[in-house]
């Protein structure tokens, strides 16, 4: 079978000097390794993620990209038998250091999951849930944040007349945007997205992608994706993983047009994976 080169549309690269100044490094992985029991899922990973840019994690299934994403809000803590060595620093603070408030961490590092998972509550209550947990009770304040979050997630116009209807009545794409609205309602600094569009049709996917490009003005976004075109379209930086190792990390432009490693080139051009 002949390999047809992917016709990837890569956005114009931001000059390196400008990036360093406007987008300082926010997240640092330092010699991070992770084991599920005896099986090592991440091997000695070190690199940095820049503020208010979109960074994509790509790689074949089982390469550790989702595991790495879940290290950032310590969702791996929920799995029995996970062991971690090395450091993950956010704004200089080691989030695995003893005494770190995981609750506070998760408020600052929001997450959107692969399968949209709205609570079986009303659209309004889905967003108000985390706010109420933080002690926000005043209706006017809740109303305001709910509206703002839904507007940011480009969902307000579609649902403003049925805020108190069940979130489960929304379409798949709307549900996923509601999950994004829910995540940004608590005003995180970082937004993690684990294949947020993989279960959506192309139109809903395009809406999510537009939204991501919109949101990166305010949030540092880390996205796991299986979709090469998606990584090329929306990300500024791309990290390619294979079998738990970071193979290459660079600007998306370079990863997709002039990768340093043969493995990366093979993967992004579709020769394997």
């Amino acid at each position, binding site marked *: 079978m002949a390999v047809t080169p992917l016709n990837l549309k890569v956005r114009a690269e931001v000059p390196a000097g400008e990036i360093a100044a406007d987008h300082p490094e926010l997240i640092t992985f330092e010699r991070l390794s992770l084991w599920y029991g005896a099986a090592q899922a991440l091997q000695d990973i070190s690199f940095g993620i820049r503020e208010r840019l979109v960074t994509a994690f790509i790689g074949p299934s089982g390469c550790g990209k989702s595991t790495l994403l879940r290290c950032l*809000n310590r*969702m791996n803590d*929920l799995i*029995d038998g996970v062991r971690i060595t090395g450091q993950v620093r956010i704004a200089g603070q080691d989030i695995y250091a003893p005494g770190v408030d995981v*609750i*506070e961490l*998760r*408020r600052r590092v*929001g*997450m959107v*999951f692969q*399968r949209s*998972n*709205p*609570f*079986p*509550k*009303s659209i309004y*209550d889905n967003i108000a*849930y*985390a706010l109420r*947990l*933080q002690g926000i009770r005043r209706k006017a304040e809740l109303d305001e944040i709910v509206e703002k979050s839904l507007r940011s997630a480009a969902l307000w116009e579609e649902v403003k007349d049925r805020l*108190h*209807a*069940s979130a489960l009545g929304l379409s798949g794409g709307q549900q996923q945007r509601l*999950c994004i609205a*829910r*995540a940004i309602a*608590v005003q995180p600094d970082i937004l993690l997205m684990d294949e947020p569009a993989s279960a959506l049709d192309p139109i809903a996917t395009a809406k999510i992608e537009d939204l991501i490009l919109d949101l990166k003005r305010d949030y540092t976004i880390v996205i796991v994706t299986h979709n090469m075109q998606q990584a090329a379209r929306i990300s500024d930086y791309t990290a390619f993983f294979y079998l738990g190792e970071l193979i290459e990390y660079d600007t998306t432009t370079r990863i997709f047009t002039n990768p340093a490693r043969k493995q990366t080139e093979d993967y992004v051009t579709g020769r394997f994976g």
Partner: protein
Amino acid sequence: MNRPINLAARGPFGVGRFEPVSFFCTGLTGAATFLILAILAVILGNIIWHGGAGFSLRFIFGSADRDMFDPARAGVGPMVFGTAARVILMTLFVLPVGVATAIYLTEYARSGALLTRVIRSAVNNLAGVPSIVFGLFGLGFFISAVGGSLDGLLYPGNPKPVWGKPALIWASLTLAVMTLPVVIVATEESLRAIPPGLREASLALGATKLQTILRIVLPQALPGILTGSILAVSRAAGEVAPILFTGAAYYMASLPRALTDQFMDLAYHVFVLSTQAPDVDKSRPILYGTVVVLLGLTFALNVVAILIRTRVRRRLRQLG
């Protein structure tokens, strides 16, 4: 290459053959179902046919006469009260403990850990213990050990036991222990049916585990918990053995006024009527009537629980 699709060229589909094995199996399963229905119809028909005869409001709500074997004077009002009281009390005891255990097993305990496996098999074994054993356990543990100690602590020197004797509270607690597995298993099943994604979503928003359980998990599990309590009520309402030594009274002149009082009971009364009556033929209408009332009460308690469950389900679906 794809074959060209031309069904017409391949001739008609033909006529389906008669398959004897399939026909036989359908008949067999159908017959089994019919047998169950027939047995149920015979039992209910027999009871209602005989029990309906001497049936009146006076009988259901009337006070029990000292001569409880005389159809003209018998009433089962105190027994209705006693049975309803012990079943409702039991539900109040068994739900919190059962639900808490199920939450621990599904939400907190490591699923593969030794302790978890031990607790699970203990719960399953509890379900297999004969009910008379629970009755003896209630007598030994609740009445002698717990009740006796309470008396020693609260009323030292008092020769007449207050807590250390058969009582409504001990019968209810014994039944609660007996129905614990039912509630635990039903609750666990409904907890496991909740998508893990919902818990993850809540935790990822900075909710604590407890907040996630109370606000996301438990509301979803409520219908399953109510199913568990329906099963527990059905199981407990007709039981005699566990209350035989722990609280049921042969005859009482007045209704129980405190948790430490004994009570008259419908199921126990059925047992009394069928074993202690001087003239079985004469008191047979009372026996049937009592059974009808017992069935009716169990049914009514179930209907209440089912109505609550339906309301909860509707609320979960519509939300507000």
